[in-house]
């Protein structure tokens, strides 16, 4: 437990720089006025969303803008969107860990937290969307496996469990550090329990590392399955422009895309608020920006494949929806999606000069707006044009749906804030390990790549 040793060499004030990485402890030890203020504002938004939901619960889904035949709208869009963002943690953390990318060390934690939290909002939006939330137990008691919705329930709960374990395992040594540092009190007791008796023996470290690498590998196929199954909800029906075999990989790519964008935004906020410039450095944003650029191109490729097939096939039922997106009622949303998902991020990220912190953050915000629109333009236009001539559906979401969407974002920010107040948002021991061991390991690894001299 090197990090616990006083850093004697620096001659600065003892009580502030007594420990290495002291700035990472600051959010846990001190809480500023700005924190309480923003927390209060966010809780007002959440309260308003709760009021909106209460209204919907009391009177029925009629308070939304949904109708026949547009039975699904903002809530299902949110569901797909949030599940997508949840892929941040898995990708950044698991893939980077497995591929031994050293620059991951300071960013894994903040990504993993997003995964776990955002999953609740994905699940939550499905529950909000139910007409009879009071009958939820029926899904468990009488669930039928032939429905893609039940595949969702299974893979989502598996993913939630796996990613929670994957968040918790690397957290144990950090909790132990906090436990040793805290004055006796409620906090110390909490860390005492959560640290599971970690003292950092050889054996413990061995098992922890084994556990983390098993989970990193386990979590990957589960993550892929989750978003594939989410897409199956649409593609397993025979509805035009939903019934597409490309939907599985298209949704997974989109999920990773919005996930990376989500983590970049979160990192930028943390960096600003908690002064973590030393941990989330330019290079992290640059590397993540390159990953985002790759996903931008992949997104464009998938979208192109999807739409060119429909256009060239020229089937009337599919074409009516295609045209609705290209030049009809949903053209603004569709083209805004193309701009925010491709034009803006591609221009910013493809240029070395603009791929800096500000640039990647702008691109990421744009991508997240675009990905929400992508989900929306997949869900709604198909429902607008049923196969049989029908009263043409018009869907305009009401204040209830918008305030619940806002409430989701606000509640997510609040829980994330609370997390940073209890646990270090940058993995202390992994950064420490990087300082102490990684250099030697990398040199050693490098020598195995090169031809023997």
């Amino acid at each position, binding site marked *: 437990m090197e990090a616990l040793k006083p850093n004697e060499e620096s001659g600065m004030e003892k009580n502030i720089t007594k420990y290495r990485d002291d700035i990472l402890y600051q959010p846990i030890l001190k809480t500023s006025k700005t924190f309480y203020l923003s927390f209060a504002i966010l809780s007002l938004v959440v309260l308003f969303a709760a009021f909106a939901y209460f209204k919907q619960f009391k*009177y*029925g*889904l*009629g308070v939304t803008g*949904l*109708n*026949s*035949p547009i*039975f*699904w709208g903002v809530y299902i869009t949110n569901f797909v969107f949030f599940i997508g963002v949840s892929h941040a943690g898995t990708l950044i953390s698991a893939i980077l860990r497995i591929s031994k990318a050293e620059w991951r060390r300071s960013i894994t934690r903040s990504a993993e937290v997003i995964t776990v939290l955002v999953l609740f909002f994905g699940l939550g939006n*499905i529950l909000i*969307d*139910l*007409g*009879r*939330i009071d*009958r*939820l137990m*029926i*899904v468990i008691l*009488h*669930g*039928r496996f*032939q*429905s*893609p*919705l*039940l595949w969702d*329930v299974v893979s989502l709960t598996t993913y939630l469990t796996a990613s929670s374990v994957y968040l918790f395992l690397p957290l144990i040594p950090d909790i132990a550090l906090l436990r040793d540092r805290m004055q006796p009190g409620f906090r110390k007791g909490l860390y005492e329990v959560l640290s599971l008796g970690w003292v950092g023996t050889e054996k413990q470290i061995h098992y922890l590392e084994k556990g983390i690498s098993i989970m990193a590998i386990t979590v990957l196929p589960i993550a892929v399955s989750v978003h594939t199954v989410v897409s199956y*909800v649409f593609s*397993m*029906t*025979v*509805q035009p422009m939903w019934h597409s075999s490309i939907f599985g990989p298209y949704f997974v790519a989109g999920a990773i895309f919005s996930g990376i964008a989500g983590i970049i935004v979160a990192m930028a906020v943390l960096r600003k608020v908690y002064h973590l410039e030393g941990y989330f450095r330019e290079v992290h944003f640059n590397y993540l920006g390159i990953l985002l650029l790759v996903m931008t191109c992949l997104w464009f490729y998938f979208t192109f494949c999807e739409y060119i097939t429909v256009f060239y096939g020229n089937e009337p039922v599919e074409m009516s929806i295609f045209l609705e997106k290209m030049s009809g009622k949903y053209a603004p949303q569709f083209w805004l999606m193309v701009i925010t998902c491709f034009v803006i991020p591609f221009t910013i990220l493809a240029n070395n000069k603009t791929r800096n912190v500000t640039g990647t953050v702008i691109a990421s915000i744009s991508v997240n707006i675009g990905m929400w629109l992508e989900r929306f333009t997949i869900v709604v236009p198909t*429902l607008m044009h*049923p*196969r*049989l*001539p*029908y*009263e043409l*559906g*018009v869907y305009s979401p009401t204040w209830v749906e918008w305030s619940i969407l806002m409430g989701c974002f606000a509640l997510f920010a609040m829980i994330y804030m609370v997390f940073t107040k209890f646990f270090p948002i940058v993995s202390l021991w992994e950064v420490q390990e990087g300082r102490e061991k990684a250099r030697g390991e990398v040199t050693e690894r490098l020598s195995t790549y090169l031809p023997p001299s």
Partner: protein
Amino acid sequence: MIRWGMVIDLDKCTACRACIIACQIENNIPPPSPEEAAKSRSIQWMRMVEHVEGEYPNLKSHIMPVPCMQCENPPCIKVCPVGATNKSREGIVDQVYGRCIGCRYCANACPYTIKSMNWYKPEWPKELMNSLNPDISVRPKGTIEKCLFCSHRIQKAKDKAKAEKREMTPDDYIPACAETCPSKAIYFGDLNDKDSIVAKLARNPRAFRLLEELGTEPNVYYLREGA
């Protein structure tokens, strides 16, 4: 085993919409308020599909009544996560209102868009409250409902036949729409009985089914117009 089916003769149909009214009264379907109807939220188990081809003055218009197709291979049943919609042994696609969780997946999966959602708690004008049909339940808010071929009438027909000490025959049971149709355009009966009127009409060269290419195998047939 009986397989209930319907044949609608489009040559005879005058699009008077009496079947829709009969259905609403028989099945306790609440009349929508004008505001809700404008939002296209009215519940209809039988609806009139209108389709106009060409441009004025060379118009060709089709109007057809569309109930639930009672598919042999229903896309709605496949997607229901809780089994709130399933198939009876006599071929009717059933709704279990007490089990429906209101996810509306079946409504989206149905290629005929015949399912309706209870967006609010159903309400009737006070005058109509006394004339609700006691044979069929009032659906709670937040659940899906649709045409069941008036399947509550089967139970009634069975009870009647039992009281008269005989087996129920297909002639004992007819849905409200078919019973009401003033131009007798709606035929109803057992498709498995080769000699029944519906089976004979289903073999007619004029007979067709909606969206047959999807393989849903509807038990509702139409007889083409103007043949």
